[in-house]
């Protein structure tokens, strides 16, 4: 049995903070063999990143570390600064989450790669440059010889991550620590980067320590899995066992919380379609009632207007009087009580559409009708009245609530803005909504910074529902959350949707999340509609090749299925050329 290349022995890390010491890691041990991929999984706060970065000596100054980190038998924690510096980059290297910040934006790629080679005395001068070009070719950058002269911002996100990987393998490291290497990337790019890492591992016989929260990535890459919870290892074993037959209840829960992209023929689908038929007829009935109650002059015979309708909408950003069009010819209809998933990769313009509906961006062309009225052209008074009908949930739970407002004021703010109710009735409404999002009413007097991300997102949802809107705009509401928290929020969301019956424009990059919620789906790419239809049509019987690529690239948390999907995807890509 070969000796492990990297082993952690009883690592303990604590941070000194304003409120006393906090133990982040409480005695963690595991090993990485040469040529093996060990995935450390866990939710935020589990200590997975802290543990692995002890091997690089990259912890902040207020951290104290105990235990041993052995890199080929040498204890990293006992090393001097100079020894550590020699070690970093040559024997052990790191791939970070954010490829933009991992590269220096003011230096050419060639300078950065050559520097990495020269610092570790691998090669010098023109020899180093040749080697750098070789490295770029190795990680799949086309026209490496000319491209190497460019700056990081001239590359796409995926290419930048490839360059970071090139730097990481420059000196032939024994171990690569990849800290969420694909989290910031789109699914199709993620699949490519994972392919690259797998190839390199086989070729260089490097050990890879992969830190991730995505079980799909684990299934795709890992040989062995270490599951962490609150700074402790709860379970460790081969990937097939952990993902297939997990023993620890926490691992089971984590797997159960993963939203699944169901394939055609999934038994849960038929059940859902049955329910769907029932609820559609119910909805139609209630709409008819609702419609007559609020019938607007034109007579009860007119059909209920769509909650949201886009007609040939084009959107553009203006910068120094120059307009850049980012969304072209967008058409869709969201009926009352219906959830429409708007999916696409970054830069597809999906969030821009959400912005325009919220009135944060002017509509350049076309009509954007909310309940039948073209919102952008309304006079400001009617526009404000119409805004009552729109609620919003944003992506970032840290930024979507005003840190200076207590929760009670946050939830009742829409009522204050629209001068509705008095102090008591507002507070009563806030309590009611807190109850609906399953938070104790004692939260009313707390501040956002005291709540966790998932709780804040639930507060966001409560605020969005304060005025009983007919339309909810959700812009990636769960993408910043941990899987189990995401599962709880999604469950709550669909429950609330059934209870309050609002229509929803659900913007997301995660097809599995959309699959679990939406009635219909619109796929966007580069500001244009690729495909739209019911969830079943689009996600299970996709016609367009782009949708098929997206579907094929999403990894599933089952190693065997994922291996099959991987070959399928490669076949698809080959067929497309």
């Amino acid at each position, binding site marked *: 049995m070969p000796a492990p290349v990297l082993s952690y022995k009883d690592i303990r890390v604590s941070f000194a903070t304003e409120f006393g010491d*906090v133990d982040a890691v409480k005695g963690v041990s595991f090993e990485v063999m040469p040529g093996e991929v060990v995935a450390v999984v866990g*939710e935020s706060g589990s200590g997975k990143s802290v543990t692995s970065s002890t091997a690089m000596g990259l912890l902040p100054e207020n951290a104290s570390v105990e235990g041993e980190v052995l890199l080929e038998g040498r204890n990293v924690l006992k090393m001097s600064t100079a020894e550590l510096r020699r070690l970093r980059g040559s024997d052990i290297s790191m791939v970070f989450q954010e490829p933009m910040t991992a590269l220096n934006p003011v230096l050419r790629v060639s300078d950065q790669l050559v520097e990495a080679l020269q610092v570790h005395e691998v090669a010098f001068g023109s020899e180093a440059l040749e080697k750098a070009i070789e490295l770029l070719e190795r990680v799949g950058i086309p026209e490496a010889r000319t491209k190497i002269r460019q700056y990081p911002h001239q590359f796409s996100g995926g290419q930048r991550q490839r360059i970071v990987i090139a730097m990481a393998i420059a000196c032939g490291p024994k171990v690569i620590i990849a800290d969420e290497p694909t989290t910031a990337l789109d699914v199709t790019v993620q699949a490519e980067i994972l392919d690259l890492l797998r190839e390199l591992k086989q070729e260089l016989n490097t050990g890879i320590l992969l830190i991730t929260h995505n079980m799909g990535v684990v299934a795709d890459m890992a040989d*062995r899995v270490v599951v962490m919870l609150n700074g402790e290892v709860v379970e460790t074993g081969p990937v097939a066992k952990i993902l297939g037959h997990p023993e*620890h209840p926490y691992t089971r829960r984590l797997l159960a919380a993963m939203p699944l992209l169901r394939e055609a023929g999934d038994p849960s689908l038929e059940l859902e379609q049955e329910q769907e038929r029932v609820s559609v007829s119910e909805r139609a009935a209630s709409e008819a009632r609702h419609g007559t109650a609020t019938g607007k002059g034109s007579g009860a015979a007119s059909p209920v207007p769509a909650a949201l309708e886009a007609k040939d909408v084009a959107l553009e950003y203006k910068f120094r009087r120059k307009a850049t069009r980012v969304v072209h010819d967008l058409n869709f209809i969201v009926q009352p009580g219906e959830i429409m998933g708007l999916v696409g990769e970054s830069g597809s313009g999906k969030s821009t559409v959400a912005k325009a509906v919220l009135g944060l961006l002017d509509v350049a062309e076309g009509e954007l009708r909310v309940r039948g009225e073209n919102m952008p052209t309304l006079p400001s008074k009617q526009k404000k009245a119409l805004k009552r009908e729109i609620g919003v949930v944003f992506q970032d739970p840290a930024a979507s609530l005003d840190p*200076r407002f207590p929760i009670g004021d946050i939830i009742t703010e829409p009522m204050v803005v629209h001068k509705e109710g008095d102090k008591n009735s507002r507070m009563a409404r806030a309590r009611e909504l807190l109850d609906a999002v399953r938070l104790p009413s004692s939260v009313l007097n707390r501040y956002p*910074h005291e709540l966790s991300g998932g709780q804040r997102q639930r507060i966001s949802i409560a605020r969005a529902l304060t005025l009983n809107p007919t339309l909810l705009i959700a812009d990636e509401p769960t993408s910043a959350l941990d899987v*189990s928290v995401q599962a709880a929020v999604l469950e709550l969301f669909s429950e609330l949707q059934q209870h309050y019956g609002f229509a929803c424009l659900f913007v997301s990059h995660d097809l599995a999340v959309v699959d679990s919620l939406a009635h219909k789906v619109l796929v966007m790419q580069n500001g244009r509609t690729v495909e739209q239809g019911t969830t079943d049509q689009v996600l299970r019987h996709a016609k367009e090749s782009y949708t098929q690529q997206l579907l094929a690239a999403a990894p599933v948390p089952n190693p065997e299925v994922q291996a099959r999907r991987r070959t399928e995807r490669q076949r698809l890509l080959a067929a497309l050329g």
Partner: protein
Amino acid sequence: MSQSTPPIPPEDVRSAAEAEDAKLASAQRSYSQGQLVRRRFFAHKPAVVSMVVLAFIILLSITSIGFSGQGTGWWSKSFLSTGLTVDGGRPTMFNGAFLGEHPFGQDSIGRDYFAMVMRGTQQSLLVAIGVALSSTVLGVLVGALAGYFRGWIEAVLMRITDVVIVVPLLALAAVFGAYAQGLPGGTLTLALAIGLATWTGTARLVRAEILSLREKEYVSAAVAMGAHPARIILKHMLPNSIGVIVVNATFAIATAILLETTLSYLGFGVQAPETSLGALIQNNQNAFTTRPWLFWFPGLFIIAIALSVNFIGDGLRDAIDPRQKRSGASRPGWRTAFGLLGRSTAEERAGKQVSELSGGPTQMQPPAGMTDHGPDFGHDPTDEKRDS
């Protein structure tokens, strides 16, 4: 490859969502944003000591000669009444007696110098607070409007700001100071007038802050729910830039005291028979070699006030934005505050972190539920945001 898994107590086996809710239910002490700031401020020793010193100086100046300065406090002498010069006007406080007849001595026409310094302190503080008030109000107004509305409003306001910046501060302040002498209201009018020359820094900082807050999702949420711009600025943006504003205002106080001193020294500030610390120094500059106490006492008070206000500003900045530096076990001591105890270089830190047990200046992981989202000073004020 068998590894012993430590036994996990059953209550730990929860999904993160449930664990968070449980944490919330277990009623732990909750801190509001303000309480957190207060806590950090009072742990900043130099700032707290400075606050005590400043409070002492203010109390001393007011109680000793009263608001009018005519000897209505516990010190019976007026700063205006002349008298016989005793012992060449030397201070009596060093002559064995506790304070003596004239603790700070007398000036050339026999006025009690203690009463004069106290009056000068009153006037200088009045100027300082007036300037800080008027410049902050004006600066916040200009900055907030420019930052929120962008477009031509911003262009006009910021060009005006640029013009004010281009004209030398002292020249501008002297013009306003001279003009204010003709107006009723005395020192306070002077202070408000000087404020017209010093608001530019605040305006630019507030604009930068508002520009960054503009992109925050809670502001977008407020816009989306149809809130009026006034509400968004007053309720969401200004409270969240209070850090920049307060800190800047304290530094404006220190600057104003020195500016008033300079103006009085040049003869454009407070006019005789009224006096200020700067005017006292100006009047007695020729006596520096013969009767140095006439120079030293007002000088000491200027230094004490300016220094303590600066330390208070430091403390406020650290308290409002803990990410900027230090926290946890290592609070700044006096030597660090004066820059005598240098912070370690990045190289040393990288080497130290693994072996050292004590905490350092960066706060990385506050305990769950205590994460602070105070205003971020790290934004580049010149950062051009996309027009949207």
